[in-house]
């Protein structure tokens, strides 16, 4: 976990489902990740490559008319309108550049697209910005699609516009951080999920083994497709390691112990891993509560 402290067997706090069998509650205050204060600006670190000559990077504004970009190399452009391109000059070595954006920005993907493959950390999504769309850039991929250097995502700092004001494909978490292979845990603590309209494969092909959410965040009720947040597959859990039966049994137990069992449809796909008699009761409990489960069946 990036913040807060996890205590076992405590019934208040935030629910945690650990993909490898843990079932915990997070006692952080749930209002911003244990009291961490986030910048009002979109604030991230770009691992700039060695630049021979010059290198352009563009912010795709999606209609923003008054915004500011601190390009991190001493240049700050203000009152920007439309797309903004900055030219980074030659450098003899890689460097970490802290980039900040603020103003009437609306499309997170458009802001990050040119940088995301080399973004090493998101410090804040900008608490003063209400994002109207997360997907942007070419192919309208998720905002952190294929951002392999990212290890965590500060969802507590992510603010979404009311659904009626959202644009394009609206605020969906589709492919949000797909192929972000450095990502191992997801923490939604403190994030207002009520304005999310759809979720498909947000962390597919990442290496997520742990998911945390607040007790009042019911992602499984979200989504035009009803696939919900807990759409797990081997790919979501780990693209390289198939769970063992023992791990899968523990996972089923953790899920049945902590996930919402309120009749809302939840899709779980765990590849071809098999469960044993140990996990059978948990699995049956989940199915009885409207989970549909795909796996390798019972051994």
């Amino acid at each position, binding site marked *: 976990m990036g913040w807060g402290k996890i205590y076992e067997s405590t019934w208040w706090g935030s629910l945690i489902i650990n993909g490898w069998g843990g079932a915990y509650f997070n006692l952080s205050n749930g209002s911003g990740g244990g009291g961490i204060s986030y910048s009002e600006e979109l604030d991230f670190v770009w691992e700039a490559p060695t630049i021979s000559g010059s290198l352009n990077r563009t912010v795709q504004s999606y209609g923003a008319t008054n915004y500011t970009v601190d390009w991190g190399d001493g240049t700050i452009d203000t009152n920007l309108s439309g797309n903004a391109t900055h030219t980074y000059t030659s450098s003899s070595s890689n460097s970490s550049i802290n980039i900040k954006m603020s103003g009437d920005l609306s499309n997170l993907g458009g802001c990050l697209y040119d940088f995301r493959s080399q973004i090493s950390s998101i410090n804040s999504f900008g608490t003063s910005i209400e994002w109207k769309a997360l997907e942007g850039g070419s192919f309208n991929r998720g905002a952190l699609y294929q951002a392999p250097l990212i290890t965590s995502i500060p969802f507590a700092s992510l603010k979404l516009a009311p659904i009626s004001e959202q644009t394009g494909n609206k605020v969906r978490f589709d492919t949000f951080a797909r192929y972000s292979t450095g990502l191992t845990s997801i923490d939604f603590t403190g994030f207002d999920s009520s304005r999310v309209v759809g979720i498909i494969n947000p962390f597919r092909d990442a290496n997520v083994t742990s998911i945390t959410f607040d007790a009042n965040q019911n992602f499984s009720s979200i989504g035009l497709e*009803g696939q919900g947040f807990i759409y797990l597959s081997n790919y979501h859990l780990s693209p390289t390691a198939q769970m063992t039966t023992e791990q899968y049994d523990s996972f089923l137990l953790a899920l049945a112990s902590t996930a919402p069992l309120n009749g809302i449809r939840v899709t779980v796909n765990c590849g071809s891993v098999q469960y044993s008699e140990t996990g059978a009761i948990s699995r049956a409990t989940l199915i009885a509560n409207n989970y549909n489960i795909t796996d390798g069946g019972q051994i």
Partner: protein
Amino acid sequence: MSKENIKISKPEVKTYWILWDSELQENIEAQGFVNTDQTFEILYTDNLITYIDEDEWLEVLFKNNINPYY
């Protein structure tokens, strides 16, 4: 008496499914597929449609603005 769960276990061919929210088939509640080495299980429902033709399955999903391979 409640009906038994629907189970698709290790189908001979990859089997695709769509779960509608009702018999009216207005909203897709969930969708997926079952590989030949997999087992799919769900509470009994009259609203589950299965396909063995991927294109047919995709056509329905696309009509409902769902790209399962996103």
